[in-house]
């Protein structure tokens, strides 16, 4: 039985396309792994209870709150962080560009949740309604904008993404 217990855990994560093999302590959250072990600080800590969404990443194509995700449970996951939205040549993705152009953010601390959720929304819905945007962003708090500019930015992102696809 004891041989089933590991003191540290070996995880293989592909983060923004790059493979990382890491030996981590069992208790580590994905958020801490990204920030502390990989020095990827684009993903933010806001509450550590899963309420604010500032720590959002995508795991195997689905958004998740990295502060309440135990890294050890992700043995072979593909992770995309906010840094991974930028294209390899440094070009901003249509979503990033739209949020910047439309003053979607003020302080930008909530950006990981807003952008990653928008990306997932637009994958399956190229023309989201107000209420679909509200559902998609419901897991994220923004304290600066009053959400008006965020809604506008999601709609602009949808248009930009369509333009790019066509």
């Amino acid at each position, binding site marked *: 039985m004891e041989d*089933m217990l590991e*003191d540290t855990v070996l995880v293989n994560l592909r983060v923004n396309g790059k493979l990382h093999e890491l030996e981590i302590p069992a*208790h580590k959250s994905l958020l801490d792994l990204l920030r502390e072990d990989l020095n990827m600080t684009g993903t933010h800590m806001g509450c550590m209870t*899963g309420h604010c969404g500032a720590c959002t990443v995508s795991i195997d194509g689905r958004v998740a709150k990295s502060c*309440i995700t135990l890294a050890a449970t992700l043995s072979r996951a593909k992770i995309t962080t906010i840094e991974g939205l930028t294209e390899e040549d440094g070009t901003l993705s249509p979503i990033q560009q739209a949020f910047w152009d439309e003053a979607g953010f003020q302080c930008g601390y909530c950006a990981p949740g807003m952008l990653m959720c928008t990306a997932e929304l637009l994958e399956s819905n190229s023309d989201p309604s107000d209420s679909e945007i509200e559902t*998609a962003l419901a*897991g994220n708090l923004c304290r600066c904008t009053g959400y008006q500019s965020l809604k506008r930015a999601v709609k602009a992102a949808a248009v930009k993404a369509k333009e790019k696809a066509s």
Partner: protein
Amino acid sequence: MSLYPAFARPRDLGQAAEIMGSLSTGAMIIAGGQELMPSVNYGALMPEVYIDVGQIAALKGISEEAGAIQIGSFTVHRDVQNNDLIQSKLPLLSYAAAQIGGGMQVHNRGTIGGNIVAMHPLYDILPSLLALGAEVDVLSDVGEVRVALADLMKDARHGLGSESLLVRVHLKPMMPGAGWSYEKLKITAGGYGSANAAAIVTLDSSKITSLRVVVGAVSALPVDMSDTLSDCCGQAWSAHLAEEVEARSSAEIKEPLSDHQGDGEWRRAMAGVMARGAIEAAIKKAG
């Protein structure tokens, strides 16, 4: 409490049972982590061993066998919402799963098993499962046992902890033509539920022939109102009956919660409002 927890990743139910049987208290089963991690992050829980059940195939999948639907406990909310089988045969459950808070992120990671074993009074799944008469398979060192979810909840150790593992949920498909509703009252969009109710109703012309109603978020555990309100059967819904349902449902809440979601007096009143609203909405869908 340990600063240096160990990690176990059983490959199948047999290994899981073995690990659970051999460990003393302080081990914690982790699935999606949505319930456990906030406590871990704040140091309120410091498990000595994390038992990651994410590799166990038996906990996954949604299937129909012998007229019953099985949902693996590791099924995430989003899959409960979007699964064709659940949408067609258990639309109440699919809808209730979509009402879970925390946004897409939590829907993508949180599991039905985790939501059940949390036994959190404010969570969304239990009322619907109880209204649907769910049974669950629980694995422990004595093997796998099937129990009614309602009975499991009567057990003081219902939190399951590290000695036992919720394997799957069994549900009978809803009757064709049954009306259903899940009503959830929130003070604001970001709030947890202050009261909720799941209802399933069948009608014969306009008369109620069967009624299942479970009210949640107003007391420590959901309250099944079905027996209390059984004499609604045989009657047609009316303003008078609606008021009676509201009053009797409220009266059934003996020890209302009083917390950030609202004081006890209001919660008790809302139990009635939700029960009434859920039945009304279910009747509209029935037929």
